[in-house]
């Protein structure tokens, strides 16, 4: 029972981290139609930037949590401006391929700057202990991640349902032509959306740093899980993404511990079943 | 005079929206049947269901006496039910000849040959047939032109040509002269008039010259149902037809 509770918390916190990251991917894919295969790379950059912040600027996790994601958002804006904006006319597939090339580039750039050895981000001292709940001892940080993830989910949901930007995004998810026909500057929307996607990836990177570590090809592992979540949860639904993230997070965590050999098969098996039976995902809307 | 197509109680609902309701009619062999009606009356939806591109929510379709309501679209083509599309639906990056050969090779039964190149030397009968068709339709000079470089009118002709190449017994033409100039329309009309009499034609048309130049019978669709059916003269002289298209005059 001990192991179960701890792994459950681990699984939930992993799930919430994946949720934050995948929301960014889902947003850019849903609005722009571009499946950003460099999204995992942005997550990785966020984590490594946090490392630099804590080492060279201010030894504060909180400072990193603020600064690193903003930097990633800026980098995303630059990417959108330089790479994607001039090439929308080439079509979605071409842009997806370009993000794939970009992921390769970022992989090496990160390795050149920060090296290939495994590193870790220090937890903030306030959250590094453990706490007892219901007779079980849990790491505080993991619980904090769960709480943080919930907060982010609520904020995102409020933004999407209750604000003008959210309305535009919801409209854009269902009908892009209509949105631009309404006189809304679609180019601006795309840039902002891509930046927000990067921001979320960066936040995920910083939050995940202390527990998942930093190492080469971390971006591809996260990317592929994000793709599974995207498919299973469906597009356009924060609730769907959350549900799928938690499912994948828990399955992956328990899988590693209890049945490592088939956890991969189960996770991708679920992805395959969803694609075959209900391609729009558990709670999602139609992909264009 | 045998019956080639019988539609019984055909209906189509999209969620709560009923596009077509209880449509029934019969077409005999060799008949030229025109379907007219204002936009949104459901004409293309009707064709889509007859061709099998859309499943009906009610009703049956009989083709030469056989119930084909649940037969997939590509199988209907093999039985002789062929349709053309309202919007040009061609293989735009390929030449006119390549488009045509793809249709012809199926009906020559050679479509699954994988061990010989498709060339004039290996499949001379295909190329000959293609040239004959292109000649008849006056498109021989466009044989090796990539379809996307053709004019709209020429593409429309290729659209119809592909339908014919598929050896239809019943040909569904969805607005064949849409967007064509008067002379192009005349050209198409003549070619359609010259088609063999054992071929049955169903045409959706807005151009009344074509309807009167070709149709034996006209079916007027309105609000998802058949409003009127008869020979062209009867339809033309019925004042209600005018109202349907242009609305009732305010007294």
């Amino acid at each position: 029972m001990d192991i179960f509770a701890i792994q459950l918390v681990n699984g939930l916190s992993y799930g919430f981290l994946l949720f934050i990251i995948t929301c960014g991917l889902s947003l850019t894919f849903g609005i722009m139609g571009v499946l950003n295969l460099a999204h995992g790379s942005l997550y990785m950059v966020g984590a490594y930037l946090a490392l630099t912040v804590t080492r060279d600027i201010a030894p504060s996790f909180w400072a990193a949590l603020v600064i690193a994601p903003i930097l990633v958002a800026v980098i995303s804006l630059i990417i959108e401006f330089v790479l994607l904006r001039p090439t929308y006319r080439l079509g979605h597939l071409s842009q997806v391929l370009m993000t794939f090339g970009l992921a390769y580039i970022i992989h090496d750039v990160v390795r050149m700057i920060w090296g290939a050895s495994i590193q870790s981000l220090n937890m903030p001292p306030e959250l590094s202990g453990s706490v007892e709940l219901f007779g079980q001892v849990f790491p505080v940080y993991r619980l904090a991640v769960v709480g943080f993830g919930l907060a982010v989910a609520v904020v995102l949901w409020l933004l999407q349902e209750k604000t003008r930007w959210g309305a535009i995004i919801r409209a854009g998810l269902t009908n892009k032509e209509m949105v631009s026909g309404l006189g809304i500057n679609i180019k601006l929307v795309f840039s902002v959306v891509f930046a927000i996607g990067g921001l979320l990836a960066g936040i995920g990177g910083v939050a995940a740093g202390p527990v998942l570590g930093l190492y080469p090809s971390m971006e591809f592992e996260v990317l592929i899980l994000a793709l599974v979540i995207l498919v299973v949860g469906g597009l356009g639904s924060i609730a769907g993404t959350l549900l799928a993230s938690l499912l994948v997070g828990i399955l992956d965590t328990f899988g590693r511990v209890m049945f490592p050999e088939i956890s991969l098969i189960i996770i991708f098996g679920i992805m395959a079943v969803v694609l075959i039976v209900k391609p729009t995902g558990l709670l999602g809307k139609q992909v264009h | 005079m045998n019956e080639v197509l019988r539609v019984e109680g055909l209906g189509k609902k999209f969620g709560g929206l009923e596009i077509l309701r209880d449509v029934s009619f019969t077409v005999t062999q060799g008949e030229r049947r025109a379907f007219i009606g204002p936009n949104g009356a459901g004409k293309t939806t009707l064709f889509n269901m007859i061709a099998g591109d859309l499943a009906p929510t009610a009703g049956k379709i009989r083709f030469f006496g056989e119930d084909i309501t649940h037969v997939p679209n590509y199988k209907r083509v093999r039985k002789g039910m062929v349709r053309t599309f309202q919007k040009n639906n061609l293989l735009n990056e390929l030449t006119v000849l390549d488009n045509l050969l793809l249709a012809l090779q199926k009906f020559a039964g050679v479509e699954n040959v994988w061990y010989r190149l498709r060339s004039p030397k290996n499949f001379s009968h295909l190329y000959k047939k293609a040239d004959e068709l292109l000649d008849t339709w006056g498109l021989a000079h466009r044989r090796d032109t990539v379809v996307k470089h053709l004019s709209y009118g020429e593409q429309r002709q290729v659209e119809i040509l592909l339908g014919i190449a598929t050896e239809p017994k019943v040909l569904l033409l969805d607005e064949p002269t849409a967007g064509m100039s008067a002379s192009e329309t005349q050209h198409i009309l003549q070619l359609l008039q010259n088609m063999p009499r054992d071929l049955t034609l169903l045409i959706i048309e807005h151009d009344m010259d074509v309807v009167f130049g070709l149709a034996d019978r006209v079916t007027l669709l309105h609000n998802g149902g058949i409003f009127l059916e008869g020979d062209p003269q009867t339809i033309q002289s019925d004042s209600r037809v005018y109202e349907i298209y242009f609305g009732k005059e305010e007294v």
Partner: protein
Amino acid sequence: MNATLRRIGLAILLIALCAVPYLVSAYGLSIMTEILIFSVFALSLNILVGYTGLVSLGHAAYFGVGAYTASLVAIHFSNNLFLTLICALIISAIVAFIIGFFCSRVSGFYFLMLTLAFSQMIYGLVYRWGKLTGGDNGLSGVPRPALLGDLLIRTPVQIYYLIFVVFAIVLLVLNILLRSPLGQIFVGIRENEARVRSMGYNTTLYKNLAFVIAGALGGVAGSLYSYFNGFVSPKDVYWTLSGEALIMVLIGGAGTLIGPVLGAAFLVLLETTLSSYTDSWMLIVGATFILFVVFLPKGIVSIGPLLVRILRVPKRRPAPARSAEAQDIKAGIEQNGVGT
């Protein structure tokens, strides 16, 4: 490109490849062998991506299945070349048939994701059957293939020729198949599936067929790799290999016969030569890929025609002669009222 030119080109290519062992060093030979193996792999993916228009991110599955099958047969039953090759081909074809059955029913993004999902499931299977496949440690000590009885194909030169022969057969068969009536159906599906369906073709069936052919040939590539490498590991089934195959097809030129071969050569050369100078070969591959997608979307094969177009100087028409003679003739015509 007309038929004779094409035949001559292919002949020259094959003859040149025949001569390779006499022209390059041992290291060069190993690179060339790898190029031919991945050419077969890229050619097989091209059937799906370039010809039928189905972009798959799950092709590594067949490479892995082929490699593991050939290796396991060689280790546990017999290392007879034909046996291992045919087993690899058949098992890959069966796997492709099953996966293709499901994938043919979806398209676009969903197709991409489903091929990825199945491929990762196979990757998971490699670990699940770790006792058989060696799991993370991979399968080592794979015996060299034997032609007949004890006649082993062991030296690098022999292995090169074995792989060359298979490559040549695949290339020549595809040369005909892709331009046969059947191949043209694949092209039609790529261009406009709805239209092809309305011509009476059961397009789902043909997509399945393309899938099985592509998968079977992918498995052949995998088995060739096992003969060459003697060692198979899970990374031969990982999705990044699918990504690399896609890069090869697209950089080389999708939908052409020789494109994937050029793309495979390009990528293998880049990886092997670059990695001896710098650790950052991924950066160069990534940047090159982006450049190709933007500026040369039709791949390396389009460089030739592009250069021809750029270098061909437009001919200028000579200005009309203004000689006295011409003026006279003109005046005479006008006087007589002929023409206006």
